[in-house]
């Protein structure tokens, strides 16, 4: 159904008739914009948010260094987008569902995923909840309501609509937030998800991290419109654009969005304007597609520094605390990393479990055949051989000796 009136000469529109403002509260120097009021955020919660941002930053730096040392096969940083991810997570109920893309480890940090839990996944060891099946950074946590990451882009978006529809029927007052980049918003799944959420009045928050790049493709080659936000009009959905490096604005916007979602079953689109300060992943080198100057300009807008200055001004955080936190964080990250990389791999059986609820006879035959083969050639399959006979240390399973390999 459309609501329309008649005209008697051709009249085209482009969408440029609409101007979508950007919601901001905090300036880069840590003071509020004129006329802006800080959201209702006490010291304890503000510090929890900031510390999660700091932990995420340090974890990312350390793990990227570990990747460069060859200790880790792959890594992705959240750097530059911590305020967007953690500010949004902090505005939710801890039992709300998070369906993220892959750069949202900050949400897990905020909800209390431990360093050991991170490391076990990154090293795919026997304690990894995902049983060593997925590449690093594909975290998941049932107890923290964080859906296991899946590499295909945007598939989580219609799933979030479905998950939230189930939450609505359950009537327990929960919602789902789904994170994605402006590149993933080009996928068909994005459009399907928003349309279905609007039609079926689903309590879901679509949180777009518009960080400027999809690997190397700049936003200017991703869409012709004024960002992602105007798409909400096409689905008659509430939308807000927010400064993604402004943790207070993100927090307040998401808080309001959650209220609309849970109390009125209104889906909401949030477009957070931010910048991916790091490379897309450990396999990417941005120097081939963007300038140092551009990166430096965004480094000036660092969301951590912005919040840190605000906290300093309030007297809620100090340089001494910052320094001692950074030091102990680095130490803890290194210690847990050493623990995780020494742990054995998941058992060979985990190759065939969880394909179905029960291992099928055909899969059992395949596993048995594989075991027989590995027993013939144990040296060629050190991890599998180790799990068949854990007391015999298989050749080739020597572990890296630790941070004396060069911790810089």
């Amino acid at each position, binding site marked *: 159904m459309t609501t329309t009136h008649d005209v008697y000469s051709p009249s085209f529109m482009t969408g440029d008739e609409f101007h979508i403002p950007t919601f901001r509260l905090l300036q880069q120097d840590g003071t509020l914009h004129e006329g802006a009021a800080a959201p209702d955020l006490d010291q304890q919660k503000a510090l929890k948010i900031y510390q999660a941002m700091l932990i995420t930053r340090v974890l990312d730096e350390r793990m990227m260094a570990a990747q460069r040392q060859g200790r880790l096969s792959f890594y992705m940083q959240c750097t530059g987008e911590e305020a967007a991810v953690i500010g949004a997570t902090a505005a939710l109920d801890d039992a709300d569902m998070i369906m993220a893309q892959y750069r949202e480890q900050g949400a897990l940090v905020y909800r209390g995923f431990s360093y050991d839990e991170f490391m076990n996944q990154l090293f795919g060891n026997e304690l990894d909840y995902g049983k060593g099946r997925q590449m690093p950074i594909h975290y998941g946590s049932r107890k923290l309501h964080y859906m*296991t990451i899946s590499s295909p882009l945007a598939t989580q978006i219609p799933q979030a609509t479905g998950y939230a529809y189930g939450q609505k029927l359950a009537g327990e007052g929960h919602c789902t937030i789904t994170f994605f980049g402006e590149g993933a918003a080009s996928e068909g799944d994005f459009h399907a998800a928003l349309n279905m959420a609007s039609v079926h009045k689903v309590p879901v928050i679509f949180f777009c991290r518009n960080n400027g790049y999809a690997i190397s493709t700049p936003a200017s080659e991703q869409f012709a419109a004024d960002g992602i936000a105007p798409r909400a009009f096409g689905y008659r959905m509430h939308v807000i654009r927010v400064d993604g490096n402004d943790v207070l604005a993100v927090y307040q916007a998401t808080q309001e969005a959650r209220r609309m979602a849970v109390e009125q079953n209104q889906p909401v689109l949030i477009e957070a304007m931010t910048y991916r300060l790091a490379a897309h992943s450990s396999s990417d080198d941005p120097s081939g597609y963007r300038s140092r100057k551009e990166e430096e300009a965004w480094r000036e807008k660092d969301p951590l520094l912005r919040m840190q200055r605000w906290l300093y001004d309030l007297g809620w955080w100090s340089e001494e605390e910052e320094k001692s936190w950074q030091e102990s964080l680095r130490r803890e990250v290194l210690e847990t990393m050493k623990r995780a990389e020494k742990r054995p791999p998941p058992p060979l059986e985990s190759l065939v479990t969880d394909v179905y609820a029960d291992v099928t006879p055909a899969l059992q035959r395949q596993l048995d055949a594989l075991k027989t083969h590995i027993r013939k050639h144990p040296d060629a399959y050190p991890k599998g051989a180790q799990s068949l006979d854990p007391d015999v240390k298989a050749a080739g399973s020597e572990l890296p000796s630790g941070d004396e390999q060069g911790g810089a």
Partner: protein
Amino acid sequence: MPKMNMLQAINNALDIAMAEDDKVLCFGEDVGVFGGVFRATSHLQEKYGRDRCFNTPLVEQGIIGFANGLAAQGSVPVAEIQFADYIFPAFDQIVNETAKFRYRSGDLFNVGGLTIRTPYGGGISGGLYHSQSPEAYFAHTPGLKIAVPRNPYQAKGLLLAAIRDPDPVIFFEPKRLYRASVGEVPEEDYQLPIGEAEVTKEGSDITLLGWGAQMEVIDRAVELAEKAGISCEVIDLRTILPWDEDTVVESVLKTGRLVITHEAPRTGGFAGEIAATVQERCFLYLESPIERVTGLDTPFPLTLEKEYLPDHLKIFEAIKASMAY
């Protein structure tokens, strides 16, 4: 015992599942007040409300993405894809998401509650895009289960089992039989096993294997063969994935001959997989090469549909060729 056609049996199964468990939801294109273009979901919205039985926008990838999320949340979605020919926009959601949900999360999350219902197959003058049998694409994807009923009794029992199965199931419904196949179906709740083939007729000379609408075609071929003095054993595979190797192998060890038939094109069709396994496990017992009677390696035609389809005469000729080898 009441007589039902296949649509009534499916509708009855959905009704039982929805009455039993509030978490069961039915949705898809035109599924709501209209009851689906084939009427498989008739009156379900009336009975269970718009929250539990509803129309979706016309977007298959959205339907299955939505269904995956619902299943992960703990609901029991029964999503309809209006024609199997239109399932491909949802291929990514099915193959990369549905099938891998449990595995990739180490069983933290699963979408075992999901059932995807979709009409498949030819014989209704549907041309390229209302006739396809895409089961083999999905059979190549560990994590999915695929079931195909051959008659109303099977449809009800297998669908109820699919909905309650702890793994996601694609339920291919032979739409040519929706109204054409009528039989006795108990009113009460019952289930038929997923993953088990059924020997529908015992015989000693040759084994005939198929599923879904082909079972009726096989039965007609068997009539001709038995008149010619050939004793046929007939197996309905019922579940394409995981498929019941043991029942098929046991039969071929006895008869020494196998004809497999499906409507889908030959190359890459599921008959190839079965043939490969049977030759591995029955090599010294085979009296003749395994025959495949399938669609041609072409898109599904329209005017020449009868020529394309693997009908009873083609199967009968394959039986004779196998016997005379």
